[in-house]
Structure formats: structure tokens, C-alpha cells
């Protein structure tokens, strides 16, 4: 029974994926609403009475002072029949007559001036630029907060990089079902991610180099990188295992064999030999990801240390992504603050931001089977990743490292819509109230 249900969910998610592919334009029926002439008895109570009632109600809620409160009110009306809002101050001025036609006022677009601009960083390099990629991707360059199109267009679309692992890692079932066949072959995995799931970039996580896992040598790891370079022609992000010493050894080797490819080395951390990591990036023309644990001061500090070796256009920053429900509020606010500070002129935060959005799967609500009322995890999981991604997109993230094809597809579409600019046809929703869904 359970197997059957699972099977059904799998089919459904496949359908969903297909549907997400075939967005179709649909014409809406335009239903005109006829407004009939009305006869409504004019209410004798004026707005002034309501304002007094409001004040009275407000004061009544105070435990004491009711008597004196009433004395404030000179009117002799009986207490209000309905609870009224406490919005005393906003009550309309009583001297103004009731309008008989629309009072036309203007709207001034509330633009602001920004002193700062986010650096532009290009990832990947084509043949003519010294690499072998079919295209490059540029991120950053913002002059206004994310998608404030009324101030400034989005200079570059945020990019999406799909995760590929060089060894078996435990993956949530809803994710695994889409990559199960290629999990033993990073090159094939990368190809699938690019060809089928439309990855802008690939993040190759060299997990196997971890001394606690396989302790793969830098030379072997470099070989995997070469295989992936040959399998796909998109820019690459090279991910380490999180051990600052081993990562550094591997980064040095990979930087060398991929000289000129403008990889992003993910990541440079405070506990790493920053000089060595940055020197490798500089010598062979790569970009580094400056990674800190949700703290703007630490982010500034690490960036400052990197400035000794690398120019701004070779630095992307990551202030840590926590999953929806597991600290996303911190991640969101740190990123939003970082971006606003950058625009206000803080030079140490003027970097494109990257997010390890795959962290969304750390939330148990994403991967776990739950009571039936919460639906199949095959939908819940990718929605978890999607909501995490969209939230950070709105905070200003430029580069997403992601996992689930449906989440990737949805974010891509959302980015397209948000960067394209004004094409909101009000007719499309004018009659939503009467729509039969």
C-alpha cells in the first residue's frame, strides 16, 4: 500500500516537472460585472460619530479612567453598538465634504539615491578568454535592492548552479529519485544537470577528499574536475569538504589544472591559510567564495583579509544559508542587511552573494514522511527548497547552489519574470473574484 502511494507520488512529481516545463499562455474569460444602481439608506451617523466612538472604545479598554474618558467626549451619544477600530488619529477630517467623484491624486515613485554598487564577478571563461567554457556567467553589479525595478533594472540575472557530488552522499529521497542513475559518475551527473535540468553552472563538491571519508588525493580530485570540465561547458564551482587544510591542498591543485577556467573556489574560510588560497586563485585566474557564519562583522573581516591578495571582481561572499524553519530568518536578515549596507556605501560588503540553498533539505519537513495532512514529501521537499530560495532571492542573492529540479525550474522562471520588468496586465486578474477555479 505504502509502496503504491510512493509510486503515485513519484509519478505526480514527474507530471509536475513536465507541467513546469510546458507553461502555456491561457486566455482568461473576460467577465464584465454589471453594476446595478443601488438604493442604500444613508446612514445618519457621520464619520465624526465614528471617530468619537473609536476614541470611546479605545478609552473603554483602559481599566480605569472611563468616567474621565467619557468626559472628553462632548457628544451625548449612546455607546457604540459595534466594536470600532482604535484608529483615532486616522479618522477623516470632519470638515471635508463627502466626495461625489474620485478625488484624483498623484503617485510619486519613491526612489532613493545609493552611494554604493555591488561588484560584478564573472565566472567561467571561454576559449578566447583563456578557458574552455561555452559561456560565462556574470553576477552582481546591483545599484538598488533586489528587484526594485522602479529604481534600476537588475544588471545580471541571478544564476543557478546544480550540486554534483564526487562520491555517494546521503540524499533526501525526493532529490535522489532524479539523479539515482548518475550518482556514481560526476561527469554524467553534471551532464544530466545541464542538459535536462538546465543548470547555469555546476558545483562539483569534492566530498571524497575528506580525510574522514576517502581522503582522495589532490591529483585524483583534479582528475574528477577534468572529467566534469569535459562533460559540460558551463562554468564550474569547485566545492571542498570543509577541512581547511585538505581543501587548500586540493584547491591549489585544481586551480592549477584548471588554470584560466575562472572557477569559483568554494570556499575560503577564516580558519584557512588565506594567503595560499588566494594566491592560487590569483595565479591561475579563479574566483573565491568568502564564507562566514551569519555575522556581518566576520564577513567584512574575512573580505578585508582577502583584499590583500585579490581584487573585488574575484570575490563572491556567502554569509551562510539556513533552511526554512531552521534559521532562515537569520540568513535572510543578514543578507538583506549586507545588501542594503553595500548600497549605502559599505565597500566591504559590495560583493555578489551566493547561497547554499540545498541546505533547505536539512529541515526535516523537507525530507521526512509526515502525517498525510502534510502531503507527499515529493512535493513538500522541493517546495521547501523553492521557498528558501525565493526568500533569499528577494534578500539579494546572486548565485544559488541548488538540488531539486522542480525548485530549480521554479526559481529560474521566477527570476525570468522578476528581471523582465513591467508586463503586468491588470485585465488578467480584474475579475478574479468571480473566477470558477
Amino acid at each position, binding site marked *: 500500500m505504502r509502496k503504491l502511494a510512493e509510486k503515485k507520488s513519484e509519478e505526480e512529481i514527474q507530471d509536475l516537472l513536465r507541467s513546469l516545463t510546458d507553461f502555456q499562455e491561457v486566455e482568461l474569460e473576460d467577465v464584465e460585472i454589471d453594476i446595478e444602481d443601488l438604493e442604500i439608506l444613508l446612514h445618519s*451617523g457621520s464619520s465624526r460619530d465614528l471617530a468619537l466612538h473609536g476614541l470611546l472604545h479605545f478609552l473603554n479598554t483602559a481599566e480605569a479612567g472611563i468616567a474621565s474618558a467619557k468626559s472628553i467626549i462632548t457628544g451625548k451619544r449612546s455607546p457604540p453598538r*459595534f466594536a470600532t477600530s482604535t484608529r483615532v488619529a*486616522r479618522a477623516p477630517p470632519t470638515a471635508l465634504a463627502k466626495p461625489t467623484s474620485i478625488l484624483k491624486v498623484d503617485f510619486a515613485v519613491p526612489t532613493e539615491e545609493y552611494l554604493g554598487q555591488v561588484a560584478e564577478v564573472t565566472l567561467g571563461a571561454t576559449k578566447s578568454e583563456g578557458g574552455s567554457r561555452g559561456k560565462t556567467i556574470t553576477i552582481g553589479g546591483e545599484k538598488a535592492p533586489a*528587484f526594485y525595478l522602479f529604481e534600476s533594472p537588475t544588471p545580471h540575472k541571478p544564476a543557478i548552479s546544480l550540486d554534483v557530488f564526487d562520491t555517494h552522499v546521503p540524499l533526501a529521497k525526493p532529490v535522489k529519485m532524479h539523479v539515482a542513475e548518475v550518482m556514481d559518475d560526476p561527469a554524467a551527473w553534471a551532464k544530466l544537470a545541464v542538459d535536462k535540468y538546465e543548470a547555469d553552472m555546476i558545483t562539483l563538491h569534492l566530498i571524497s577528499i575528506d580525510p574522514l571519508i576517502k581522503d582522495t588525493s589532490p591529483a585524483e580530485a583534479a582528475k574528477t574536475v577534468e572529467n566534469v570540465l569535459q562533460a559540460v561547458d558551463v562554468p564550474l564551482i569547485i566545492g571542498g569538504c570543509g577541512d581547511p587544510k585538505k581543501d587548500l591542498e586540493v584547491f591549489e591543485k585544481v586551480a592549477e589544472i584548471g588554470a584560466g577556467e575562472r572557477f569559483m573556489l568554494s570556499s575560503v574560510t577564516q580558519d584557512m591559510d588565506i594567503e595560499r588560497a588566494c594566491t592560487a586563485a590569483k595565479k591561475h585566474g579563479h574566483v573565491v567564495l568568502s564564507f562566514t557564519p551569519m555575522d556581518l562583522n566576520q564577513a567584512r573581516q574575512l573580505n578585508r583579509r582577502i583584499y590583500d591578495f585579490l581584487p573585488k571582481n574575484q570575490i563572491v561572499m556567502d554569509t551562510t544559508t539556513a533552511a526554512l524553519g*531552521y534559521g532562515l530568518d537569520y540568513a535572510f536578515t543578514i543578507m538583506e542587511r549586507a545588501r542594503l549596507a553595500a548600497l549605502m556605501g559599505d565597500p566591504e560588503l559590495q560583493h555578489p552573494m551566493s547561497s547554499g540553498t540545498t541546505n533547505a533539505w536539512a529541515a526535516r519537513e523537507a525530507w521526512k514522511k509526515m502525517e498525510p495532512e502534510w502531503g507527499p514529501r515529493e512535493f513538500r521537499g522541493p517546495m521547501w527548497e523553492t521557498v528558501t530560495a525565493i*526568500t533569499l532571492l528577494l534578500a539579494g542573492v546572486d548565485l544559488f547552489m541548488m538540488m531539486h529540479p522542480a525548485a530549480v525550474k521554479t526559481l529560474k522562471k521566477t527570476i525570468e519574470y522578476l528581471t523582465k520588468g513591467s508586463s503586468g496586465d491588470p485585465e488578467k486578474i480584474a475579475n478574479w473574484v468571480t473566477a470558477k477555479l
Partner: protein
Amino acid sequence: MSTREVKKRSIKEISPIDVYMLLPKTNCKECGEENCMAFATKLVNREIPLSQCKPLLKKENENVFKQLWEMLKPPIEEVEVGSEPNIIKIGGKYVMYRHEFTYTNPTAIAIDITDEMPDEEVFSRLKTTENFNYIYIGQTLKLNMISIRSTSGNPETFKATVKKVAENTKLPLVLCSFDPPVLEAGLMATPKARPLLYAATKDNWKDMAELAIMYNCPLTVFAPNDLKLLRSLSKTVSQYGVKSLVLDPGTIPGDGLADTIGNFTMIRRSATKRGDELLGHPLIGTPITAWLENADSPPELKNWNEAHLAATLINRYADILIMHSVEGWALLPNVVLRENIYTDPRKPVAVEPGLRTFGTPNQDSPVMFTTNFALTFYTVASDLESAGIDSYLIVVDSEGIAVDCAVAGRKITADKVAEAIREAKVEEKVKHRRLIIPGKAARLSGEIEESSKWEVLVGPRDSSDIPKFLKEKWTTTT
């Protein structure tokens, strides 16, 4: 431009001194605070209502009261929907960005019902909405309202549905129709419920305003993708006498997304940063419009598109949402997102201190401690869980502060840890006496050994290294 467009000082610009200067300065303590300055500080932090100051309610203080009220009121009107005791407050925001202060009144989610749905569906939707609850960090996450749309256009049909719903739920209502007689019929079915009325447009505003005044309801003004008109309508119906307004600049899905969030953003900025009172009302988002797109696509896709549109709107300033989906997988991420975004960023989030078990620990299993800062706790918990480590974790009350800061700030001390070990009765559960402490609490190791008489092992600085640490270091004997 409106004459009321005087720039109001933002919440960050008001100091307790500003407020104190206007208070009676009698230090009467009737408000429960030590003195007027303490009361002023709480007022500025929005931790106490102005009406707690009893002397201010006296007639001779009327003007001062009004002055303070004006000074302290949020730039976004706080609108109440429903009648006692089932009132929901929407809006009342003080700031544009949550880090500037905190967001008040979490986005209310209203679930869609129409007057042409079969009874069975109406009741099942009511039930789903009312029964929806998810426990998250000690909070129960819920859905908040029922929205009733007239798709029939028939006043009697609408009236019957409103009556049926009102008799079966206490949740506050949104009544939706652009046709005033239809809306009035709905109101007649439940005349004192104070539903949110949806919506006044350029064509029907006068009749809608009359209804709002007659039934004392908040009124939504709808001007899709036309902020000039939205502002004009806001001014018009306010001046007409409607007291409480909600604004709908239109939720246009798909290729209208950029305009949609652009409008929400411009409105919120105008109200919070420019003091534009005509736009200083709660915003309603209607992710339900995602269902209008791709009419032939499967319902999963519509649920899907509505869910992420809702998330976008929760992030970008919607104070109330109308949703059609009743799927748990579509709603759960949104109520969790709402909880996250509306958490007070000024206060650290904490979990209950005490003992937690992971897997099936036995008397030889490792014992560790961490702080009750929610993020720290959940990170450690998820690392232990995903690595499948059978263990005991003692959560020490650090007043919601992370390990390094708690140690530095003496929120975690050796005595506190020793007491937590005793209270957790962990000595009855394991036969060893070896405690693994966070790497960032290393400097407490000696003191903890002294206070608790346990042997201390300094663990990794990051909980993701616990599996490695245990593999290398953990034995039950020295």
C-alpha cells in the same frame, strides 16, 4: 497631493526622551513600571500600550494623549477584522525591513470558499482551515480566516453561503464581490461580524463605502497595477467616511510578478519612509490568482504556483493573503516562512532547556551539552540525527545565546552546567561520567570538572564534526 502628507518621524527616530517629555512625569507607578522613564522606554519599544498611563486619560491631558498617540502610531494602519472575541489584527507595521525593528501582526492567511461550492466542499474547507495546526518551536502555526467569494453573482446565493459559513466557524471573514448588492446580501447574513469587505474599485467605490460605513467594516480598495488610482481611491473613500482600509494593488502572477512586487515595495516604502498616509494601510495579496494561469494544467501545478507566489508576498509586505490551496505541502512552508519572517529579530530565539535523546542511547552512550539558542540547538540536533548517533544532549539555559557569546557573557557557567546535569538525571541513565562540551566552551572545562565531578572532553567547535570526534575520541573510560 494630500494635505495630510506631513513627514512623520520613523520609529527609529523616536527616543524614550521624546516620549518622556510628554508624560506626566509623576512616577506614579500606576502603569506597573518603576517610573515614567521606564514606561517611556517600553512605549518606544512597543512593549506596553499608551493607555496604561492612567493620568494621561484625564480630560486635561487630552491633547498630550493625542500628541503621543500620533507620535507612536505605526505608519501602517492596524486594521481589526472580525468581532469580539474573534478579532484578527492586520498591518500595524512600524518598519519596512524587519531588522529595523520587528514586524507586527503576522500575515493573516484566508482560505477561499465560494457561494457555488457544494456543501461538502464548503464544510471540508472549513474543517481543514480550522484544524490546521503545526507545532513549531513551541508555537502553534495556524490558518486565520475564511474568504467567501460570490462566483454566482446572485445576492441570495451569496447570503445563504455566508450564513452557512458564519454559523459554522468563528474565524474572521473576508467577503468578496465587486457587486454591492451581492456584498450587502452577505453582510445581512452576518451583520455584526465585521468582515473585511473586498473590494471598492473605481466603478463601485461609493456604494462600497456606504456598506463599509453602515456595517462598520474595514474596506479593501482594489486598483490592479495602478498606484495613482489606488492612492486616489484611498483618499476618496477615507474622506467619504470609511475608517479602516486595506489596499490591493493587484497580485498578477507569472509575467506580472515584477510589477506586483514592485507595487507592494513602492507602497510600503512610501508609507514607512515617506510618511504617505494614503498608502499607510495594510496590503492584501491574492496568490489565489495563480489558479487563473494555465487553466488546463493539473491542480498540483496550480497549488505549486500559488504556494511560491504566497511566499513571495509574505516576504514582500503582504499583511493578509487569500489562498485557494488546502494542501498541507503548499501551506506548511508558508506558515513556517511567516513565523520566521515575523520573529522578533531583537530577541534571541530559545528552545526549552532540558535533556534530549537521539536514537536509542544506552548506558555507554555519549553525553553532550549545548545551549538553548534555537538555531544552535537545531543545528546540533540535525547533525546528531543525520549522523544517526545514539546520544544524550543536555540543553543548558543560556537565555537563548549562542555558545561563544554565552561563555563570554557568563550566561553559561560551570555551575549552570553542573546543575543541568543533575536536573537531567543523566547519572541514572549512563554508567560513565564523561561529558563532551562544545569546542567554543573549552575554557570552562576545568571549572566544569570541578563543579560536576564529571570528566570533560572538549568537543569540536562545529557540531558537524561530532561524528568524526566520536569516532576518534569517544570511549566510556579514560
